[in-house]
């Protein structure tokens, strides 16, 4: 199969290929939390992984760092990581605690979390923690490490960085803490930054600051970013590409402008019509939410996972898992509506036998 996402071999940093992640428990059948995930991360670009709680977006991100819980494993698939343009390493094949994996983790790939308190040590100053990170990776003395730390703290917009380096995490506000964690993540100039809902716990003005900061840092460091969020507004602000997840499937993926302008999967469309638009009274439309609740992964419907809640479901949906269907350059969706001649007609979805709307096919 030719890759659906066009890529320049030199710029591609990480490629997920057909990754399945399975959770097992002693008394119940295995659960496929994530299935057939493919995506590519490119230097200098941001891929946003968006979905509601329990869709598998965090699990996918943790799989890249091999930080999965003990009862979870990558069942099959490859995670190809090529940091220096050489032969790619398959992260999925490495031991999660192997030397190779440890040198990738923190050195090449860093991660920031929703709650910085959980990843910062409460008993050390943030300066000491970042110093240690730098010394671990660069083999420099404490003094020059501290210089770099101060530089980093300044870069992430912490006022008075030299004094703040001596603060403990609990002495900082939520926004500053998140900045400190970003500084720590950047300490060894990673190629890839994974951000797991980094702004969810913050106030809107702080969130805007952090998003601005991440964008600026990405431009400076040229790193790829995998941004996990449930907020379509944040996606629109920060992403170059977006992958929409539902119950462990990536149901639609593509350039952020294409996906927001002409979403092709009914779930993406439903998500978009679930958020209130910033419009005047006159253009106000009643929200059109998805019926019902997300089923638990152990009761995932056969075929397309979204069948039970999809307003357009028809014959094959409940039995056949739809494949990836292109809907434009680098834009695809997993939906039978896009491929079946006898599918019900839905306005705005590119269907066989329906003339494309002008400008929709790139």
């Amino acid at each position, binding site marked *: 199969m030719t890759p659906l996402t066009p890529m320049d071999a030199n710029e591609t940093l990480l490629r997920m290929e057909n990754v399945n992640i399975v959770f097992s428990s002693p008394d119940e059948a295995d659960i496929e939390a994530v299935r057939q995930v493919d995506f590519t991360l490119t230097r200098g670009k941001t891929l946003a992984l968006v979905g509601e709680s329990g869709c598998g977006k965090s699990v996918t991100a943790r799989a890249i760092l091999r930080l999965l819980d003990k009862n979870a494993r990558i069942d099959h698939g490859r995670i190809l990581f090529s940091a220096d343009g050489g032969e790619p390493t398959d992260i999925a094949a490495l031991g999660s605690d192997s030397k190779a994996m440890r040198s990738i983790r923190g050195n090449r790939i860093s991660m920031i979390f929703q709650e910085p308190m959980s990843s910062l040590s409460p008993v050390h100053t943030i300066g000491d923690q970042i110093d240690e990170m730098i010394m671990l990776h660069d083999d420099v003395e404490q003094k020059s490490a501290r210089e770099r730390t101060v530089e980093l703290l300044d870069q992430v917009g912490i006022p008075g960085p030299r004094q703040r380096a001596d603060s403990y995490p609990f002495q900082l506000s939520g926004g500053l803490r998140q900045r400190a964690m970003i500084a720590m993540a950047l300490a060894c100039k990673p190629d890839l930054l994974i951000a797991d809902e980094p702004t969810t716990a913050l106030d809107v003005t702080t969130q805007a600051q952090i998003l601005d900061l991440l964008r600026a840092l990405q431009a400076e460091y040229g790193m790829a970013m995998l941004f996990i969020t449930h907020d379509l507004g944040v996606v629109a602000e920060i992403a170059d590409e977006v992958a929409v997840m539902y119950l462990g499937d990536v149901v639609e993926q593509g350039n952020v402008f294409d996906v927001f302008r002409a979403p092709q999967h009914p779930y993406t469309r439903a998500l978009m019509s679930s958020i209130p638009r910033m419009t005047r009274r006159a253009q106000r439309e009643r929200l059109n939410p*998805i019926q019902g609740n997300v089923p638990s992964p152990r009761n995932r419907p056969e075929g397309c996972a979204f069948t039970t809640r999809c307003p357009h479901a028809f014959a094959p949906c409940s039995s056949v898992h739809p494949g990836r269907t292109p809907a434009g350059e680098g834009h695809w969706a997993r939906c039978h509506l896009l491929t079946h001649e006898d599918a019900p007609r839905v306005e705005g979805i590119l269907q066989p036998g329906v003339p494309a709307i002008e400008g929709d096919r790139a």
Partner: protein
Amino acid sequence: MTTLLKVEDLSKTFTLRSGLFGEIMSLEALSDINLTVKAGETLAIVGESGCGKTTLGRCIVRALEPTEGRVTYTPEPGRDVELSALKKRELKPWRRDIRMIFQDPMSSLNPYMRVFDLVAEPLRIHKAARGAELERRVVSTLEKVGIPRDALQRFPHAFSGGQRQRIGIARALVLDPKLVIADEAVSALDVSIQAQILNLLEDLKADFGLTYIFISHDLGVVNYLADRVVVMYLGHIVETAPTEALFERPRHPYTEVLLEALPIADPTRRSRRHEAVKGEIPFLGNRPKGCPFHTRCKFAEDRCRTEKPALRPINGGETHAACHFAETLDLKGAYGPAPATGTYA
């Protein structure tokens, strides 16, 4: 429209004491709040964490005791009840009229009670119904919020977040209230579930003839739901205006900052923001002198650092703002370019 609830000069000060003989520190969570709620409207109270919006909601229902000020409720024209002056026992009948929906549907339902009893509890407390009548009212309220009859005997833990919030709403509505205070009622829910609940709240408002005080940090939701908006910052009201006027042309720099910071789900509007606001929300304990926002305001002048601006009507209209320069500042709203036929002047 008639006034349903009036808050006058409301202040709330928390005192903290560190240790047994420690210093007493007082935090003024609300200072001199004045607002009116008109019958039938949805009034949104917005602001970031620590702005006092939740405290204000709780002071209105007397879950917290206000330090100063009056809350007056007008159940019918010509009859004013000063809620803040009533004793706990005297307050009870009014608790039927003013109800609250909580943010966290997990913790606001007693885990040891079945759905039926949860919803019947307010009726039992107020002796509003019994026997078959009680059952009928509970079942019909639950049906209206979309909880099926066969769920009556279940416990809250058997429901998803969205369904629990529906049960919470049924508890608020079963007493046929007039005013419902929804404190971040949809914030904890997933996007698609949030939309279900927003639609439900909208329908119920029409069905029951309700008035809402909708406390939220999410301006997108507020724009969708509210008729009027109150913007709070560090315990002060900085601006209050009809929704469309506020989003079209904010009058207080903080409102503009909030609107700018709001992520909008449209990548083509990404560039509307020049730069996020500087700095952080100050700690309540050392609130700046003068205008509380001056430390972060890009328009701040010397006057702002010394003189606290009062909340005053702007251009004689409905909009009130607490900014010395509210008339002259040219602030950006959140809407896109105005449609051809401009509706707003």
